[in-house]
């Protein structure tokens, strides 16, 4: 791993590691280690701290308030955040909405929305998925209809993570029925307190509330709510996905959680019991393979080489690895993972319950963001084309 980094990059890592250690309050690290779904306050507190250092939007360009780092520096920074058990950076605001707005938004939109994202004072959710349009965008049914200088939105969004505490939604809606199904979509900013919006909690397989259904009934938006050109929403969304090839790999989170799991087994049993060694060795190997593959993609990007279907490859490998880790955790933790309410031993710290929740919720990682089946088809098409 180290051999992939230049001396400057290694020095950079030392710097951010030390600074993160100095900035991160212990209660936030503790919370991150033991909770799957992050409440707004935890993310906001950490975002504000990072913001005060100018690091809240680590992959934004300097002109919009980012630190102007290279892809490899971002990778290093993300890995150090995970290593320190820092709360997650808001996926929707920082990763998705910010770049959408600074790439395609109007000057007014940039001025209005970017500061709140940077500071962590405003939270966002995404309104892409729908109950009937999983990975098949042609089935997207939410419409935005022009009415004078307003847009009237009707429809239902599904799987809206953080929708219950977000301030805004970035909405993908159909604005043109006359063109091919993928073509007639547009992006809008929707204030979550607009009349006509109902947020309904969805309890997921882990028994927790982190996603929502959002109903939009005659929601009225100003003309200024439109991002970029009308009917170009899917083009923008795809542009962003291509810009974020490596995020779905979830390498830093997986690496950190596995290090902790392994340390836990070794602390309890002195070593990895022989029966689990093959699984452990395979996960270590897959983690290494994934880390380096991510770095290769970043290097390709930096050097202007075509990374091919690597976004899909990272999604497939990364999601399978996440599931492999949680499967091992469940087996290793045994009763501790399923007896959610019992003080199993004096030192029961909820680690089992935490893993059980994570394991169950993790069934989604091979389904969301384009199912792995769809990713595999993309990979094969790229191979056959090449």
């Amino acid at each position, binding site marked *: 791993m180290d051999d992939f980094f230049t001396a400057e990059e290694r020095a950079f890592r030392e710097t951010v590691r030390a600074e993160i250690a100095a900035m991160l309050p212990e209660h936030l690290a503790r919370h991150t280690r033991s909770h799957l779904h992050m409440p707004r306050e935890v993310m906001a507190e950490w975002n504000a701290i990072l913001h005060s250092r100018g690091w809240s939007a680590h992959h934004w360009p300097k002109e919009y308030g980012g630190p102007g780092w290279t892809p490899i520096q971002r990778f290093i920074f993300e890995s150090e955040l995970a290593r320190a058990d820092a709360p997650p950076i808001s996926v929707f605001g920082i990763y998705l909405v910010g770049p959408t707005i600074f790439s395609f938004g109007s000057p007014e939109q940039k001025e209005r929305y970017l500061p709140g994202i940077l500071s962590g004072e405003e939270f966002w959710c995404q309104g892409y*998925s729908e*109950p009937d349009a*999983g*990975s*098949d965008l*042609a*089935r997207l049914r939410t419409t935005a209809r022009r009415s004078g200088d307003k847009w009237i939105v009707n429809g239902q969004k*599904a*799987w809206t993570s953080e929708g219950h505490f977000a301030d805004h939604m970035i909405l993908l809606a159909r604005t043109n029925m006359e063109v091919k199904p993928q073509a007639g979509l547009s992006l809008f900013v929707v204030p979550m307190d607009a009349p006509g919006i109902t947020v309904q909690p*969805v*309890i*997921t*397989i882990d*028994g927790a509330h982190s996603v929502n259904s959002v109903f939009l009934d005659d929601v009225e938006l100003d003309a200024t709510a439109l991002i970029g050109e009308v009917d170009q929403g899917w083009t923008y969304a795809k542009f962003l996905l291509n810009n974020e090839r490596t995020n779905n790999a979830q390498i830093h989170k997986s690496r950190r959680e596995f290090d902790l799991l392994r340390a836990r087994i070794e602390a309890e049993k002195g070593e990895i019991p022989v*029966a689990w060694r093959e699984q452990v060795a395979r996960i270590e190997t897959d983690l290494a393979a994934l880390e380096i593959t991510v770095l290769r993609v970043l290097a390709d990007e930096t050097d202007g080489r075509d990374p091919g279907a690597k976004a899909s490859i990272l999604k497939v490998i990364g999601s399978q690895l996440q*599931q492999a880790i949680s499967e091992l955790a*469940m*087996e290793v*933790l*045994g*009763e501790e*993972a*399923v*007896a*959610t*309410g*019992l003080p*199993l031993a004096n030192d029961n710290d909820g680690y089992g319950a935490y893993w*059980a929740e994570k*394991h*169950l*919720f993790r*069934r*989604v990682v*091979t*389904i*969301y963001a384009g*199912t*792995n*089946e769809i990713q*595999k088809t993309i990979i094969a098409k790229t191979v056959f084309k090449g």
Partner: protein
Amino acid sequence: MRRSHDQSETDSLLRASAREFAREREETRADAADSWRAFVEAGWPGMGLDEDSGGLGADLHQCCLVLQEAGRALLVETAATDILVAPRLAQRAPAIAALMPDLLEGRARFALAGQGDTGFSLGANGRVTGRSALVPGADRATHVLFLAGSGESASLCLAERGTAGLRIHPAPLLDGRTAARIDLDAADTGNMTVLFAGREACDIAVELEALLLCGAASEGLGAFEAAFEMTADYVQTRQQFRQPLASFQAVEHTIADVYCELEKFRSLHMAMVSALSAGGTPVPQAVAHARLFHASDVVRAVGRLIQITGGIAVTEEYKLGRIYRRLQTDAALFGGPRRPIEILAGTPMAKPASFH
């Protein structure tokens, strides 16, 4: 001797009525005070008991078939000990036989406190100390069965709830069922009934634990069947990219793979029930086969059904995810997959080694 499920008309009738009964209770919570009452009225506790003793006289296949239906509906009441263990023991232990009227009336419920971290040691002073594994349903037991000590000095004991030194720690399980861990702290066997002693006690304890695993696997089979059927239906209905999911080869082949797994589990389950009906040496192997499959392959198979179903399967309201949660919980209980692995591969087979 059975060579198929639902071999007789009685089997089919029994299954139909159990299925209806279970379906009506599908959403009942475990702690609903009178939930057991309905089971009692439907005759579940005494199902395996002789008709002379007021039971229904069902054989083990039939009792397991009823448990399959309980599993299919994800009933949170854990009935396996009362249905499988108690009647079997009543045949041989007068003290248990004497409790059968209470069982039939729903006043007595049993828990078998299985092998835990420590097991139960039996001191020369007749006092028992130790901690059991988690036992589903034990939180509502009125009577606890356990093996104290080992080998020649072992005792199979029956202790009533409230016995000094006996503590039942209830614990909600991940899947909404409840369980308990049973602690004995220098509890005096003088305050209990010693049902069997020595090797006989050990052998019976093994048999009772096998029945418990058999009950769990029966419920697991029902849950797996429900998962498979609802998924096979769903993928034929759900449209994506202008065609039903079922028309995609990836979905087709997943359905085929999982169906193979289901048939394998049915076979292993049938063999286990047959072995337990007949008794004898193949019992531990047959139980370990079914248990290993239950605690690993079945969970993985249902995970694959979730994958082809897609997002809806990971919502609480959709039953498939709850089935997965149930099976994942099952897998972690009773020592997980490692115990059957040790039974099947840890002990060399006594076989003539005839090579070339």
